[in-house]
């Protein structure tokens, strides 16, 4: 995972609550076995018309937001399916940070796994950011993970909460599997003590 320290970028305001992962990456694109190639299909049904041409009304297709790298959106972002493809698509498209009042649990986990930062801010503050970004071109923020701050070009500064361990992993770009494997002794000890009635997927069953 690439370390995340700070990021400065233009806000893309996507003003709707409860954006589900089917909307972020529709199921027809989940048949692929690769981990890449999802940036082009991000928000597919909103971003393209039925004939496959870009929908000029959709926020990602508006020239002012083409280079945006910070997505600001409504509460419960990433709800629904556990597909990590949603986080892959957002990152591959070019987003480094997602700011919303709240995130679906599985989506937030998936994002953290790949170094895509999710920042929860109070609903009223997110509303201001959405309105600011809609009203003025090139509205930028700087997100500083070490200091847990979001600062805009006008000098407005918010602080945000982040799990200390998640912060440590993101700042250092750590491989979570590698961290767990350091506990081989504890894992083996736990395994040896597991109850004998627990199922093992061997044989045909009875």
């Amino acid at each position, binding site marked *: 995972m690439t370390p995340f320290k700070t990021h400065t970028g233009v806000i893309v305001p996507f003003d*709707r*609550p*409860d954006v*589900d992962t*089917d*909307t972020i990456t*529709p*199921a*027809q694109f*989940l*048949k*692929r*076995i*690769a*981990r890449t190639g999802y940036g082009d299909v991000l928000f597919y*049904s909103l971003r393209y018309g*039925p004939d496959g041409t870009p929908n000029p009304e959709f926020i990602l297709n508006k020239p002012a937001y083409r280079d945006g790298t910070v997505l600001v959106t*409504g509460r*419960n972002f990433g*709800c*629904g*399916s*556990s*597909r*990590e*493809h949603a*986080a892959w698509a957002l990152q591959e498209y070019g987003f480094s940070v997602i700011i919303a009042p*709240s*995130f*679906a*649990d*599985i989506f937030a*986990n*998936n994002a953290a*796994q790949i170094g895509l930062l999710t920042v929860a801010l109070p609903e009223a503050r997110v509303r201001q950011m959405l309105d600011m970004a809609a009203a003025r071109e090139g509205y930028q923020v700087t997100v500083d993970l070490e200091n847990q701050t979001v600062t805009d070009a006008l000098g407005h500064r918010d602080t945000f909460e982040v*799990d*200390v*361990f998640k912060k440590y992993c993101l700042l250092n770009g750590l491989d*979570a*599997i590698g*961290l*767990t*494997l350091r*506990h081989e002794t*504890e*894992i083996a000890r*736990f*395994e040896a003590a*597991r*109850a*004998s*009635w*627990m*199922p*093992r*997927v*061997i044989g*045909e*069953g*009875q």
Partner: protein
Amino acid sequence: MGARTLVDKIWDAHVVWRRDGEPDLLYVDLHLVHEVTSPQAFEGLRLHGRRVRRPDLTFATVDHNVPTWSRSLPVTDPVSKTQIDALERNCRESGIRLEGLLSQRQGIVHIIGPELGLTLPGLLVVCGDSHTATHGALGALAFGIGTTEVEHVLATQILPQRRPKTMEIRVEGALPLGTTPKDLILGIIRRIGVGGGIGHIVEYTGSTIRGLSMDGRLTVCNMTIEGGARAGLISPDETTFAYIEGRPFAPRGEEWERALAYWRTLPTDAGAAYDRRVELDASTLEPFVTWGTNPSQSEPVTGRVPDPASHADPQARAALERALAYMALRPGTPIQEIAIDRVFIGSCTNSRLEDLRAAARVVAGRKVSPKVRAMVVPGSQQVKMAAEREGLDRIFVGAGFEWREAGCSMCLGMNPDILGPGERSASTSNRNFEGRQGPGGRTHLVSPPMAAAAAIAGHFVDIREWRV
């Protein structure tokens, strides 16, 4: 130790390592794998030179993208075929048991785990699928994970997790006539909202829950994620034990006695505290129909499509207007006047034997409306065979339904069973998101009897008036 909840007990029994400031390392007893969220995880293992630690605790099937037409026909979509082949290869190379397309035990992963006796009380179960919550119905702590976490569990059998808060959802009273466990969970989501359970694990309690069959409990726990919580559990009881006993992978003999003795210690202790509590009176439930684009947007079948103008908050109004525009519905339209094109009876929510029986009772002796194309997709090949032994297939086919092979099918539109643009369905599945059942498709979530009745009438009807 003081009074503990079911979740506390299972969590504490699975902590391999714990340190302040870090997530707990939890041991995974059962890892369920399917074709869609696993290929990149296996690829990750290969890139790092890692192996599957416990193939004997890992179980795979194909369900999401498989065609539901005859199993004697080939998988014609080359991209789906590649994904199915990749799972077969990955399982073969890692020594993982796979119930493939031709297996009599193939089916939707959340149907076959309980059905085969793999899902048991007190286990920690994970799967790269958000509906893993289903398995909580047996008193297992089960939740959906992403692909990187799938890779983590394959490599280590460990899932690092922060302990979520707990939420009790207590439901008291008898389910009113004409309502089903599906209406119960739609009623709960209507109450707490689609984000209401974020950061929580739910335990369902109360006389209504206790009175549900195991198939009904599986339906309720299945849609826990639609309320935002990753896991939803029910304390195991005699209904649970009777369901499990004798299933293929369930413990037997002395092991059964040992397991049973442990399972009886699992239910939440009297006086145990939850972080949050919600209470619901079952007598307030009605047959619900969703009208919008998330599962909390439902009305009783006797109701009308709501009016965005009644919302003072501009954001709420805008969200409602967008939902109605996508669904092509006018405010104030009686739900029963909404005409449908397709009916889908299936999915990990409602494709078990009891669901099919309930739908068949409605269908028996009637005909599907000529304007409707209706299909039944059993959740597993075992469910399909059991239904056929009872003659349910003949009832459905006789009425004009298509009777298919097992899979996720039209629930998520990854196989050939999809809605066309603008088509409207009555569906027993779990999500009515925009495009969920196919680009441009419009989904109304209902119970199996309500879907069956809609297929006959060509529009939604109040099942309570049909006296079935």
